[in-house]
C-alpha cells in the first residue's frame, strides 16, 4: 500500500513537471512575458517553419537592433555615421526632417543582414532545411540567405565580391544552430538608427528551439574597422506560426520595395 501511495506521488510530480503551466519571470515590465512553454514534441535539430519576431523577454526600452549597448565606434565609423540622417533620437547622429533623411531603405536599397531581421515592414521569416543547407527566407523584400551546412568554408580573401546579404555557413553545436557570415557590402545600415558597418563585418548568429513554438536567437557583430569591440546581441525570441497571416495562399506575401511606387508615375 505504501508503494502504491509512493507511486501516486511520483506520478503526480511527473504530471506537474510536464505540464504547460508557465512559470512567470519576475522583473519583466514593459516587455512581453516569457512564453508559455509548449509541451508538443519537436525535433531540436529542425528549424523548419514560419517564424515571427516578438518582444518576448526583451528588456524595457529595447531598440530595433542588435542590442542597446552599441560599442564605441572607430574614427572611420564615426565619419560614416556622421553623414547618416534619420528621424530617431536613439543611437542616431541626430533628428532630421523627413525630406532630409537618407536611410538607404527609402530608395529601396536591399536592407541587408542583420537589419532585415528587425526592421522589416513584414516580419516573417522562414527556415527550410535541405540536404546541403538551411535556407532562411524573409517576407520583406522576398530575400533569402543560404546557410550552407555542407562543409564549405567562408572565404577570408580580399578578392571576394561582397554581397548585400553576405556569405554564410552554418553548423550544429548541440541543439544550437550556429551561423557565421562575412563579406557584406558596406552600404547597408545595421539598423534604422544608422549604425554603420564596414566590409570587414563578421556576424555570428545562434538559433535554438526552446520548445515547439519558440526559437531564441542571439546575433553578435564583430567589425574591427567600425567598432572597438564585439557588439553582443540581446536575446530575441521568435514564435512559430502555422499559417502566415498576410497571405491567403498559405505562403509569404510578396513584399517588394518598388521604387516606381514611391512616387506618382505614369502607368503603361
Amino acid at each position, binding site marked *: 500500500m505504501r508503494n502504491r501511495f509512493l507511486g501516486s506521488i511520483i506520478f503526480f510530480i511527473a504530471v506537474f513537471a510536464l505540464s504547460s503551466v508557465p512559470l512567470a519571470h519576475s522583473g519583466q515590465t514593459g516587455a512581453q512575458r516569457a512564453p508559455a512553454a509548449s509541451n508538443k514534441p519537436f525535433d531540436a535539430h529542425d528549424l523548419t517553419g514560419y517564424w515571427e519576431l516578438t518582444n518576448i523577454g526583451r528588456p524595457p526600452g529595447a531598440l530595433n537592433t542588435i542590442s542597446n549597448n552599441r560599442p564605441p565606434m572607430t574614427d572611420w565609423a564615426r565619419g560614416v555615421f556622421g553623414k*547618416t540622417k534619420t528621424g530617431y533620437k536613439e543611437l542616431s547622429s541626430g533628428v532630421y526632417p523627413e*525630406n*532630409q533623411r537618407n536611410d538607404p531603405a527609402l530608395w*529601396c536599397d536591399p536592407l541587408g543582414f542583420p537589419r532585415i531581421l528587425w526592421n522589416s515592414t513584414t516580419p516573417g521569416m522562414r527556415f527550410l532545411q535541405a540536404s546541403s543547407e538551411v535556407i532562411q527566407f524573409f517576407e520583406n523584400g*522576398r530575400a533569402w540567405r543560404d546557410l550552407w551546412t555542407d562543409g564549405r568554408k567562408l572565404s577570408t*580573401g580580399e578578392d571576394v*565580391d561582397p554581397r548585400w546579404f553576405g556569405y554564410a555557413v552554418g553548423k550544429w553545436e548541440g541543439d544550437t544552430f550556429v551561423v557565421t557570415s562575412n563579406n557584406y557590402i558596406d552600404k547597408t545600415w545595421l539598423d534604422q538608427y544608422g549604425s554603420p558597418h564596414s566590409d570587414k563585418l563578421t556576424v555570428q548568429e545562434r538559433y535554438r528551439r526552446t520548445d515547439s513554438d519558440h526559437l531564441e536567437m542571439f546575433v553578435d557583430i564583430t567589425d574591427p574597422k567600425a567598432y572597438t569591440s564585439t557588439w553582443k546581441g540581446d536575446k530575441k525570441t521568435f514564435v512559430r506560426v502555422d499559417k502566415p497571416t498576410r497571405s*491567403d495562399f498559405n505562403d509569404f506575401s510578396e513584399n517588394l520595395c518598388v521604387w516606381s511606387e514611391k512616387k506618382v508615375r505614369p502607368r*503603361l
Partner: protein
Amino acid sequence: MRVVGKESSAQTVAMRKAVERTFNMQNRFLNLFVVLAAVLACANGLFAQKAQSSNPHDISGVWRMLGPGQTRAVAQTVGAGASHPTLGNNRPPFTAWGQAKWSQTRASAQRPPLSYVFLPDQKDWNDPLFVCDPAGYPRTGGGNSMYRFVQVADEVVEFFERDRVWRDLWTDGRKLPGANAKPRWYGYSIAHWDGDTFVVESNGFDDRTWLDRQGSIHSDQMHLEERYKVLDRDHIEFSMTLTDPKAYTTPWAGPKQTMERMESSDGVAPGIWGKRPNGKPYEDIREDYCVYSEEHSFWINDDPTGLGNNFGDVLTGTDKK
C-alpha cells in the same frame, strides 16, 4: 538395427563427428560466401545507382537555359549559351485591349515586329526594368541568369540570380488562387509530376511587367504552363505556353529549349568557396539585385530625391540642402 562391434561403433562415431565437422565447416564457408556475395551485389547496385542519373523526379541543382535549338553551351564564358525562357517570336495577335497596352511601350530593343517602336534616345524608353521594377516571370530567367531548384517535401523552390528572388512551386496539392487574388510580380505557382515531366502552372500576375525586352505585354489574366521534361540527369527540355484571353486572341506556345545542369553558376568566382574533397565546386548562384540608387544611367528622366540634388550626394550626405 544393425549390430556393430564396440570398436566399429567408436570408429563410426568418430567418422560421423569428422563428417559433421567437415559439413559444418562447409556450411560456414558457404554461409560466408553467400554473405560476401550479397554484400558485393549491394555495393555494385549502389555504385550503379550512383553512376546512373540521380532520381529522375528531382531537379534540384543549378541550371542554365540554352537558346532554342541549342543542345549545349557554345562557349564557357559567363552567360555564354544562356538564353531566356522565351515564348519565341510567334506572338499571336493582340486583342484590342492588348494592342492598346502594347502601343504605349517604348522598348530599348530594336526588334520589330515584336517591339512597337524603336526610339534611339534613352530618354524615350519606358522599359520598367530601367526603374528597377521587378522583372517578374518569365522575364527574370535566362540571359546571364542561372536557375537553381531545391526540391523538398511540399514544393520545389526556384531561385533566380536576377533580382535575387524565388518562386515557390507548390507540390502539396493546393489549387491556384482565383481571380480575386492580390496580383504578384512573380505570380502564384503550383506544380506536379506527369510521368517524367514536371508541370508548373501559374497565375495571379501583376500586369505591369513585360514578358521580354521587346515590350510584349500581358494582362492580370495571364496563365502560364511550363513543362520541364527530364531527358537525363544533366538535361531538361523546357517549354512554356501562355494563355491570356484579355491580351491575346490565342495561346502563345513557345519553342522547346534545353536546360543544362551546372555544377555551380559561372557567375560565382570559383575561389569563393574552394572545392569539395572530390574536386568539384560548391554549388552557388550569384546575387544580382537591381539597385536604383546605383544605376545612374537610369536617372536620365528622374531626380529620385525630387529636390534637385544629385542622388549620390544625398546618400552620402554631401548635398548642400
